[in-house]
């Protein structure tokens, strides 16, 4: 059921103002259930049809815990230009494979695409990250997993702008929070979902933080993750909590493709383990 009645209509919408006669054309259907539960949000969903982008160190091809990767690209430098091209390098660290494996474990039927932003040299790595993100937004992914951040102030405005574009283009950016006493981005922006870690073993357990900028806590401690060479390791960090939320977003969007990032955040909030009345949800 669509939340947005106007989606099926071809007529052009008013962009900057709303004439009285036009209000009916953007009428929203009252499709929200009386109570948003986890069962309503993603019960029965496998993530099918949802496109998830892993912006990271690359993803190992044919890793048993990752399965099919629809496409792998990398950002590299060509003089002053940054180019996005198809890539067969795999993963230069192991981290991207770990994130892809976590998303896959939660949303087994989603599509995965890897954008490798590591390995183009250290210098300009923030610009490489930005180009990778720009490409991901252009491609219209439903969810972009960003277990990374930059501290470079010169890129903050552009990053902010991109995060807002993604928000309105219905690409949900899910970004790792930073637990060090230094400002970094984009996780601090309101248009992304920022994720920190909790210590529970349940991959579906997540908590809404009443004191942002970290908005949700997900599983990030001592978990077994896919790593290089087809194997697994145990790992800890907010960067592993992030793909848990990305995977849950994929489940929700597969069942409710009409949801915008604004709705999606609300659904995550309403289905968080710590939201009153939802502890058993």
């Amino acid at each position, binding site marked *: 059921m669509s939340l947005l009645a106007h989606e099926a209509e071809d007529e052009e919408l008013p962009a900057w103002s709303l004439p009285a006669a036009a209000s009916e054309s953007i009428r929203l259907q009252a499709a929200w259930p009386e109570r948003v539960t986890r069962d309503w949000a993603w019960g029965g969903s496998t993530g099918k049809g949802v496109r998830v982008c892993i912006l990271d*160190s690359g993803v190992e091809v044919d890793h048993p815990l990752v399965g099919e990767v629809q496409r792998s690209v990398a950002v590299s430098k060509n003089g002053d230009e940054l180019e996005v091209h198809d890539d067969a390098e795999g993963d*230069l*660290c*192991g*981290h991207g494979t770990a994130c892809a494996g976590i998303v896959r474990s939660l949303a087994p039927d989603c599509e995965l695409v890897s954008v490798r*932003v*590591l*390995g*183009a*040299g*250290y*210098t300009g*790595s923030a610009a490489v*990250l930005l180009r990778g993100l720009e490409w991901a937004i252009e491609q219209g992914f439903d969810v972009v997993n960003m*277990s*990374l*951040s*930059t*501290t*470079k*102030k010169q890129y903050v405005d552009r990053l902010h702008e991109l995060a807002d574009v993604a928000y309105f283009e219905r690409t949900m950016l899910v970004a*790792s929070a*930073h*637990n*060090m*006493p*230094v*400002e*970094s981005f984009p996780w601090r922006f309101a248009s992304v979902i920022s994720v920190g*870690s*909790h*210590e529970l073993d349940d991959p579906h357990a997540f908590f809404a933080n009443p004191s942002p900028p970290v908005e949700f806590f997900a599983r*990030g*401690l*001592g978990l077994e993750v896919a*790593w*290089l*060479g087809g*194997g*697994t*390791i*145990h*790992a*800890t*960090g*907010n*960067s592993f909590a992030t793909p848990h939320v990305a995977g849950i977003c994929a489940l929700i969007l597969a069942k409710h493709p009409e949801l915008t990032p604004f709705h999606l955040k609300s659904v995550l909030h309403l289905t968080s383990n710590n939201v009153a009345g939802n502890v058993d949800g």
Partner: protein
Amino acid sequence: MADDLRAAVAAGVFAAEDSYRALLRATVEVARAIFHAKAASVFLLDEAAEELVFEAVAGEGADSLVGRRFPADTGVAGWVLVTRQPLVVEDLTADTRFSREAAESTGFVPKGLMAVPLLAEERVLGVLEVLDRPQQAKFTLAEIDLLGLFANQAAIALDLLQRARRAKAALQGDGELGTLARLAATLEDGDEERRAAGLELLAALERLV
């Protein structure tokens, strides 16, 4: 007199470099002790070469590793550097590529490591790694926070060390600061009249710039 002044300034700079290196070394030793780890190291980012350099090592490899280099944009340390995110990985021996690279660069293969970026405001200076904390000890998120605190301290020491090195290079080099140092020495060495005239000129220059 000029030699004395240069020697005095140089002594301050050289002594500072030694002190800051000792501070960094002490930081990694405390990090190693507090996590009961086999080794701990600080890597300095050499931006021009795009390499990470072992700058201070405690425990395993302490005698042989300082000065060794490896690429700054691959592997766990490279990921931490580029993404600014701390990372803890255990059972790394399952990763054959990592094992080979680690064995080649450090002489031993850690089972696990904690890595955290060393940040000074928006700049990343390097990476702090703690290798092989006891496997049986259940890791907690509080340990990551502790590691972050250590990283902050190590970053300050590393920043001071780099500043001392730049000061030393400036004193020795032909660059702008080298010129200023030589000018200061010449003034110090001149007779009273020349010095007064020189200082007057410098005061005028200062107002101008």
